[in-house]
């Protein structure tokens, strides 16, 4: 791919000399069309411009840094309270909104989804059709008569108890009422898997080895022999302790669903929300604001990744009359984040939060209000 990186030289504050090392900032590699690239070419004509001996109040105007505001001195339009007389002169617009960032931090699903009954039945139907329509398995091509391989295959086939499409019971291809053959049962599948895949030789060898080892250990300790219970490592169940207790603070609950962090503020109504706070300072942008908000709200003990710099949603609401001097209301821009490790910690949080929960989309619906949910629902993944 063609990537053109241009090194820019920006004139710094209060410098007399231009040196190659100090004042040149490598810009991020941008795949820009020729037209846009020309804008960045302009400041390179630096050697012909005179250097002022005094320190400038702000950066010299060029296309990168924004020009200083003409009307106001250093005023933060997002801060709320100000004298009405002074403020009217500074706020040229009739409607002015507070800008806030919210954080939608999620733990993506760690397991495959639980299939609904209809979907399981459909897949079973297609598998059974496939059994019926395929040509029969060419057994004698793969397993020669009288070999150990053939013995093993016959044992595994018997253990599998499979529907035989070309046998005497080929007519019995339908799912009987009350049968659970089409359902996915992880524990039953594990035993089934061991019986149908682990070969006899391996099984006996490993069992023998394990028994010999345990016998030696037991003799050394002077105890009775213990037999190992599992030949093949058993996978963990799909539901954890957190699921059984329904502990909404834990991140290993509902492993097949996406969990979102909501925090409780100290109020009666509209308490549960995504963490949010107003933008602070003149130059804070949405992504910085979101990172700061999450740090203040949920602590530093989380390994997070903020996805991109663009917001994923907006919640806009008007203040009740008399709430603020000039602001009509607030616009909350939500930024997307993922949690990779760690946990939220509300001790010493600066936003006065009481509690937090990790909830799925449908659980969230009950906890936040209707209006908020309507603004927020399309950002969230149902699964």
């Amino acid at each position: 791919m063609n990537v053109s990186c241009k090194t820019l030289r920006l004139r710094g504050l209060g410098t007399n000399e231009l040196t190659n090392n100090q004042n040149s900032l490598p810009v991020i590699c941008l795949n820009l069309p020729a037209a846009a690239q020309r804008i960045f070419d302009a400041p390179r004509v630096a050697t012909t411009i005179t250097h002022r001996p005094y320190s400038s109040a702000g950066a010299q105007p060029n296309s990168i840094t924004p020009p200083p505001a003409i009307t106001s001195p250093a005023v933060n339009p997002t801060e709320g309270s100000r004298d009405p007389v002074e403020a009217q002169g500074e706020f040229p617009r009739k409607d002015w909104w507070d800008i806030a960032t919210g954080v939608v931090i999620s733990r993506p699903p760690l397991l495959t989804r639980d299939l609904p009954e209809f979907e399981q039945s459909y897949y079973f139907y297609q598998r059974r059709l496939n059994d019926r329509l395929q040509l029969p398995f060419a057994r004698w091509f793969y397993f020669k008569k009288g070999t150990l391989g053939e013995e093993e295959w016959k044992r595994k086939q018997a253990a599998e108890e499979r529907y035989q499409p070309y046998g005497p019971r080929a007519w019995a291809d339908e799912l009987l009422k009350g049968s659970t053959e089409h359902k996915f049962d992880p524990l039953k599948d594990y035993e089934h898997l061991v019986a149908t895949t682990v070969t006899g030789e391996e099984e006996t060898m490993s069992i023998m080895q394990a028994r010999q080892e345990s016998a030696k250990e037991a003799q050394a300790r002077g105890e009775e022999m213990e037999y190992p219970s599992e030949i093949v490592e058993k996978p963990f169940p799909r539901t954890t302790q957190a699921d059984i207790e329904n502990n909404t603070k834990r991140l290993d609950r509902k492993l097949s669903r996406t969990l979102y962090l909501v925090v409780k503020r100290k109020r009666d109504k509209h308490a549960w929300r995504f963490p949010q706070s107003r933008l602070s300072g003149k130059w804070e942008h949405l992504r910085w604001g979101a990172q700061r908000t999450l740090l203040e709200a949920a602590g530093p003990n989380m390994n997070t990744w903020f996805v991109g710099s663009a917001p994923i949603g907006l919640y806009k609401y008007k203040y009740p009359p008399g709430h603020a001097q000039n602001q009509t209301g607030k616009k909350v821009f939500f930024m997307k984040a993922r949690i990779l490790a760690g946990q939220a910690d509300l001790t010493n949080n600066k936003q006065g939060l009481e509690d937090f929960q990790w909830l799925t989309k449908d659980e969230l619906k009950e906890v936040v209000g209707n209006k908020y949910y309507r603004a927020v629902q399309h950002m969230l993944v149902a699964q």
Partner: protein
Amino acid sequence: RAKYQYRSPRYYRGRLAPNMPPPSASPSSRLFIPGPFAAERLEDHYWNTIASDLQVLSYVHKQNPTFDIEKDYRQLTALRLPPKPTRRQLPALRTFRNIPRLTGITVHSMVREAMKDSAYLHAAGMIVQSITGVRASVHKSKENIGMWELRSGKSISVTAQVKGRSAYRFLAQLIDVVLPRIKDWKGVAGGSGDSSGNITFGMSPEAVSMFPEIEVNYDMYPPKMVPGLHITIHTSAGNDVDAKILLKAMGLPFDG
């Protein structure tokens, strides 16, 4: 046996003929192919997690410049520049409708020894078929090139195309099972890509034998007849970069 087995008619003989072939979606049709047998992990992961992240990451506030066939073509030809647009083929806007996704995978194997002995091509076809689950199609050579001992009209290569859910399955198997087993595999070449969102990489005969379908009965194939292959991953991205970002999100490592 006395039992009658119904078979649907092979040809459509007009709307007035009494015995009509059933619709192709019906199980009794000759054209019916049994549908999905299970939900696919990588496909669900793409829709739940990857797609929305990709949409956010490739957001543009203003429309990207697109190649206007009437205006730009005339300008370029007037300047005597080549008419092919050399800019990255970005969509005008990234929306939820044009997020890059996997559309299919092509497995291709060209076997030079098949010029002399067609058994090599049979083995290649069997291998491609067992890996993909799709019947392989044979292609003939077009050119006569003496230097490479190539004669036209000879069956020389096999391909198989996997689409839809099976493509996700095949890619997941590659990423999770086969590619980690290859010795000293650095990743897909960083410069791979045809500027249209298709990424290709090759696999040596040793790598091909790492497929579980081949490994289980490797001895049944004649010695030295297991070929190497090319795997082309087709995506709906219009350029290399987005295609690579998609595949990296799915777990395919790139080298450089």
